């Protein structure tokens, strides 16, 4: 069970890192996957900076939690993912955004996964 959990955390962490690097290197390729059109000027700076920072933090936290076996590293990742999912729901309810279930579902599931990992894969 713990081995499966470790593999899932590892895969998700690598995927987040990969996405973060994509935002840094090929933002135009990755933007459509999030329903985004690349802006210019300060907007583009925010898109690349925020998105790459978000995904790199997620990936690094997951992998640090996995390798150092310290649960504290999972908390930022859980917070980032769950608050993002919450934000998406509020965007749908309050701001007429699309209900992006294909994005919300993985965020919720991976938050839960990291919650389990924080309990089962850590020493302290």
């Amino acid at each position: 069970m713990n081995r499966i959990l470790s593999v899932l955390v590892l895969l998700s962490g690598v995927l987040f890192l990969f996405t973060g690097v994509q935002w840094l290197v090929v933002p135009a390729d990755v933007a459509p996957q999030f329903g985004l059109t690349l802006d210019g000027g300060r907007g583009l700076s925010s898109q690349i900076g925020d998105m790459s920072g978000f995904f790199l933090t997620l990936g690094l936290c997951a992998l640090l939690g996995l390798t150092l076996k310290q649960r504290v590293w999972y908390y930022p990742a859980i917070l980032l993912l769950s608050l993002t999912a919450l934000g998406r729901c509020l965007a749908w309810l309050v701001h007429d955004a699309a209900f992006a279930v294909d994005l919300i579902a993985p965020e919720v599931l991976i938050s839960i996964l990291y919650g389990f990992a924080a309990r089962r894969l850590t020493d302290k």
Partner: protein
Amino acid sequence: MKFLAVFPLLAVSSAVVLATEDMTSAVLSSLALDDSRRPNIVLILADDLGFTDLASYGSEIQTPSLDALAAQGVRFSNYHSAANCAPARAMLLTGVDSHLAGVPNIPELLAPEQRAAATHYRGVLGHNVVTVATLLEGAGYRTYMAGKWHLGMAPEQRPIARGFQRTVAMMDSGADNWEQRPYLPLYDRANWFADGERFNLPEDFYSSEFLVDKMMAFIDADARQGAPFFAYLPFMAVHMPVQAPQEFIDHYEGAYLQGWDRLRKQRRERAAALGIIPDDVAMVRMATTDDWDALSPDDKAYQAKRMAVYAGMVEAMDAHIGRLIEFLKARGDYDNTLFIFTSDNGSEASGPADPRGFVAGIGTRRMGYSVAMDGLGLKGSFGTISPSFASASASPLAFYKFYAGEGGMRVPLIIAGAGVAAKDTITPAFAWVTDIAPTILSYAGVSAPASRYAGREVEPITGRSLRPLAASEVGSVYGANDAVGYELTGHGVLFQGDYKLVVNQGPLGDGQWRLFNIAEDPGEMIDLAATEPQQFQTMLNGYQSYILQNKVMPLPAGYTQMGQLLRNVVRKELGDMPLVLLFTALLLLPFAVIYKLNRKGSL
């Protein structure tokens, strides 16, 4: 004394100088006077519009603005353009063959080895040709462009550097019609430029409306109101993604539930009744045309909706052309304006048979587009028509865009307005896309350059003015023995009199040369190669001459259009992928080290 002797010479010289200045003033004055008579010229280009997509060519689509122009001018029923976009635009604007002009194909379909082998195989307009805008600008015209350019994006290739004084230009092969968004993964972004600089589209953007608004603003805002203008308006309609405002789509709700075969027949009948084609033209049923009756009711409704969106996009374009015409009338410019309307090539059949399928939908899903029936045509959707409806759009012709069949090359052409004597006339005379530039120059009273322009060698215009046809002075501007050639990725054509020698390559063509009489048989059904071998051989020889004269290069081994497009997409996609993987691996490296140390118990 010597001074006195020289004096008469000085006096004569001064008199000559004064006389010359007077003459210059006189010429300038006459030009200024002529400005009230020189016509404004509006060149409107649709994108991927099929031969029978206008009501005045046999369509059920409502196109009252263009039909009104047709009623006041000449419709060409035997006008041909290139089989795809950029080569057509290069020829349209320069009057020179696409190969010589540097655009033998769109850059998206060129192989790297083609680009490397020759400077005229890069898909950008060369500086060895002069655009009609440059020539008109030099003659005192105000020159504007609003729409799709697709002839090069580098600073020296932009329309602002090719004779257009005010521009808003979309530089790619296409883009979203509702927002600034690329439609192919080949592009990092939708590349819009205004007056030569990158430009962000407004929030309330819809392509046809926006382009006409821009053109009207250009015309209105120019301080040189006394000078005539040349307005080039290359619409994005009806290139994919096929998108239209809901109110236009609604006009065609349920209109296509009878299917593509019925529509193709209806259009043939209407075109024949209008006199666009001969009666009872035989027509092929393309191998890519599906069996409508085999579709489920839901699938029929979906396919009909796709075509309704297409029709809505055509009608929206027409409505905005109508706005431009009303604007010109309100300004008092209309009566002195020449209108030329045409399409860059025939109807587009690159849309999948059913874009909702898993494989067919990979591309659009990856781009974040919806192909669902609800909302099709609106913002966020990716509309196309299938090859089946594309064939109906080209009725009664064979093939479509990217092929050298008549369906890919024969398109509507309307010339109307100032200086066009013929009213509500249809001419069956052969005309070719390189004829448009010399036609415009003829109406403007501007000479075409021979072999030099502005101190550099240039390719001379090979097209012929269609003005005598529009004036009903002649039956044709080409003689029975005049040959016009064309090549695109191994598809080859030679027009001569009523004959057309043609070869279409795969996947739909079989690579066999055929000979047709396209005056009697525009559907290209009766191959005359065996029955008229002398004509066939003469035209084969003529095609070889065309290849040599226009520097047509052989195709790379194994080249196919779709294969090359996919290779270019993959190359572009993978171009940065090693870098992404490298950075990711670098980030992972410390974790691998920590993991190793953990295993050894060092941590």
